[in-house]
């Protein structure tokens, strides 16, 4: 048996800034050529584990270490980040911040420049990797001109150029649309074999990673490894849900249909999945579920009529778009990156002015209202809460909008406290914002908008970067204000799970127009639209197709069953 290339021996680590160890007594061996997925909820220590592999721990993040980590024979405590970077190539979560060069080719050559290689060597190496990663036509492009998927390929080229044999990916799917994510996973798989790499992927979107075979799944919780096996046995024991991770959709569907997972073969790969009598079981389940009549909302709230906008008159981003949103709806707005989802929200909120067309909100012409006045009716919440927070205390942050509207002190206090209660932040009201987690900060930004009592909320990727527990909490909260206050909510998202399970209506944007406007289950079973809008087929669709079921009906019934179980 070959020796492990990465080896943790009874390893513990405690950041100097923390009072408790983040990693506790880890034992983990990874062998050359393995492809390992490390999953776990936020705060489970999976990112810390990644930092041990590339040497950021203990070099950049000092702390107390006990035990040992060996990377290809090098002990991390005795090696510098520079030494380890020859062994481990790291692709960071946000490919944008990894991109340090002014152009693609300079970024690829960055580490070679630091090694003082000659220009001829660099040209050969960049040409080779540009070909492997299909970047030839982009070499002189600036980072601002690239899509998320392209940036990630540049980031990969920039570390592969070192010929390091271990590749570490920190949440590679976080900033990609579903289609790019799928392509990225396929590329990683191809490289693993072609370049003989050992790959470690840190990610909590397990289903997306499992689209390509994984040798081992390591699940972490509270600084410890709680599962370490091939994916199949872990899936079979239904460990995922217990461990705070999101199960693949097809697995949930099998469970709903009453399939005994012990009878299943190849549970980790839907293509090879074999289950005795699967077709009959699924058909029986489908027949047994009656679809509730869809909830309909009929009172128009926002009416958009022949809207047009483009920075360049010859290239319209929004081209003759008309749509009506109704009061009380929960809508998902999806589409490829750069297709105008943000532009549309900016037109609605008044950040941009349309070149033609009319918008009315509750009968009022939006063109007559300023940005500030529109904000009284329509709240817009950015993806990154740090871009919205400007006060140090939670109470002040939430009160800020009311103070600016010159309300009296007593009213402000009453409304702020009421909003904080709705948002589950009442206990924290005297806390400094800096002490909050990412999810809590997000909630503060929502509270700061809700306090203005808008009739509609637009949220940009409300659940990005959150683990299942925080995701569920956030969505339960939004569902609650949608139901109880009749708040109209529009979510801009790449997460198909989110649009399926939580929204009633999906608007697909593409080419400046609406490609489709239908129930989420209908959208995600329409192959042409999936292709056009860079979405990806869900495993439910594939499962239904494999078993000759009507995918639309199957997906709709699955969603209903999931919601009822919630």
């Amino acid at each position, binding site marked *: 048996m070959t020796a492990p290339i990465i080896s943790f021996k009874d390893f513990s680590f405690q950041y100097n800034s923390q009072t408790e160890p983040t990693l506790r007594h880890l034992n983990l061996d990874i062998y050359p050529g393995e492809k390992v997925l490390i999953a776990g909820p936020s705060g489970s220590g999976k990112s810390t584990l990644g930092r041990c592999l590339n040497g950021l721990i203990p070099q950049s993040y000092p702390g107390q270490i006990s035990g040992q980590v060996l990377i290809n024979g090098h002990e991390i405590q005795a090696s510098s980040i520079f030494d380890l970077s020859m062994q481990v190539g790291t692709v960071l979560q946000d490919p944008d911040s990894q991109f340090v060069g002014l152009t693609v080719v300079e970024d690829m050559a960055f*580490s070679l420049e630091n090694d003082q290689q000659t220009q001829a060597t660099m040209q050969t190496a960049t040409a080779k990797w540009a070909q492997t990663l299909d970047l030839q036509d982009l070499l002189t492009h600036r980072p601002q001109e690239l899509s998320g998927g392209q940036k990630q390929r540049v980031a990969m080229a920039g570390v592969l150029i070192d010929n390091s044999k271990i590749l570490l990916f920190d949440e590679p799917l976080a900033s990609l649309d579903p289609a790019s994510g799928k392509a990225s996973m396929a590329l990683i798989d191809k490289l693993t074999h072609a370049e003989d790499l050992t790959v470690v992927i840190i990610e909590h979107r397990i289903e997306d990673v499992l689209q390509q075979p994984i040798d081992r799944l390591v699940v972490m919780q509270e600084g410890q490894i709680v599962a370490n096996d091939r994916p199949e046995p872990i899936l079979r024991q239904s460990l995922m849900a217990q461990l705070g991770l999101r199960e693949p959709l097809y697995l949930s569907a099998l469970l709903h249909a009453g399939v005994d997972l012990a009878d299943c073969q190849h549970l980790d790969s839907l293509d090879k999945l074999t289950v005795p009598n699967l077709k009959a079981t699924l058909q029986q389940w489908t027949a047994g579920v009656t679809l509730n009549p869809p909830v309909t909302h009929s009172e128009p709230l926002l009416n958009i009529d022949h809207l047009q906008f483009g920075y360049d008159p010859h290239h319209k981003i929004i081209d003759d778009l008309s749509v009506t949103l109704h009061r009380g709806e929960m809508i998902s707005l999806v589409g490829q990156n750069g297709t105008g989802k943000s532009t549309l929200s900016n037109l609605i909120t008044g950040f941009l002015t349309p070149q033609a067309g009319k918008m009315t909100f509750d009968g009022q012409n939006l063109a007559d209202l300023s940005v500030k006045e529109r904000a009284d009716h329509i709240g817009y919440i950015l993806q990154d809460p740090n871009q919205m927070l*400007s006060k140090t205390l939670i109470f002040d942050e939430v009160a800020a909008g009311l103070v600016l509207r010159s309300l009296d002190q007593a009213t402000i206090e009453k409304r702020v406290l009421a909003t904080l209660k709705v948002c589950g932040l009442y206990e924290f009201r005297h806390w400094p914002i800096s002490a909050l987690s990412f999810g809590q900060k997000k909630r503060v930004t929502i509270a700061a908008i809700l306090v203005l009592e808008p009739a509609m909320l637009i949220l940009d990727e409300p659940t990005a970067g959150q683990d299942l527990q925080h995701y569920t909490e956030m969505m339960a909260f939004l569902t609650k204000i949608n139901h109880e206050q009749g708040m109209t909510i529009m979510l801009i998202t790449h997460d198909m799970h989110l649009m399926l399970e939580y929204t009633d209506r999906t608007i697909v944007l593409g080419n400046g127009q609406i490609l489709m406007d239908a129930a989420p289950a209908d959208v995600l079973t329409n192959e042409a639209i999936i292709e056009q809008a860079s979405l990806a087929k869900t495993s439910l669709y594939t499962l239904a197709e494999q078993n000759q079921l009507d995918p639309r009906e199957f997906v709709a019934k699955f969603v209903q069953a999931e919601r009822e179980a919630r």
Partner: protein
Amino acid sequence: MQHQLLIGYADRHTFLNRLSGSTKLLCFVGLSIIGMMTYDTRYLIGIMLFSLVIFHFSKIKYREISFVVSVIIGFSVLNLVMVYVFAPHYGVSIYGTEHLLLGNNQHYFNLTTEQLFYEFNLLLKYTFAVPLALIFLMTTNPSEFAASLNKIGISYRVSYSVAIALRYIPDVQSDYRTISLAQQARGFEISKKAKFMTRVRGGIQILLPLIFSSLDRIEIISQAMELRRFGKGKHRSWYMAQKFRANDYLALIIVALLILLGGLLFHVNGGRFWNPFK
């Protein structure tokens, strides 16, 4: 719009584009220094003409630079006026003679040929380097800036910070726009409609999140750079650096001769000033 930031670098296919960035930087710095030292009007006019001729060859369009040029002219005029206000007799004390044009020598504000001549020299000094600076900025690929700075002896860490700034300014700008809009939507009025103090306070509301998000960004970038061995050695090589070719040496020789001529004139004039009033 993002390209505008680099005062419009474009490959205009002239010999100036093909010169290495280091050559252009050295020529610019060298001529600026000698031009700043000398008050020899003949020499200044010479360099001014020289740089205007080169500028003509660079094929830079006037409309690309009209804004920058008007700002520079504005500042120069303001400066000349202030020099006159604070020291209306400085020309007289330099050149040692007094030819009155307006007023009499009892008044603080009078006008002498000497003062006019002195200020004319100042104007030349302010403006002769402008075409050279514009040529350097607009014909040098931004990717080559850092390499050029490093080549003339500035440490590569400092040089690279120039490249990083060029890389991230558009991102920070877009952050600023996003944050500003989000704050406006909550009611911070920063448009011209609001009072000055309100706008200042609104500005601070944007700055705070911007600073925090930029600090986060810096931390991540520096990690990303370290993970790719930035800072490992005493030196680093540059993918975009250009080797010196015949034209580069020719340009450097011409400029060296010009500088030598300037130095020679110090000797001939017996100091930095050329005095036509003697």
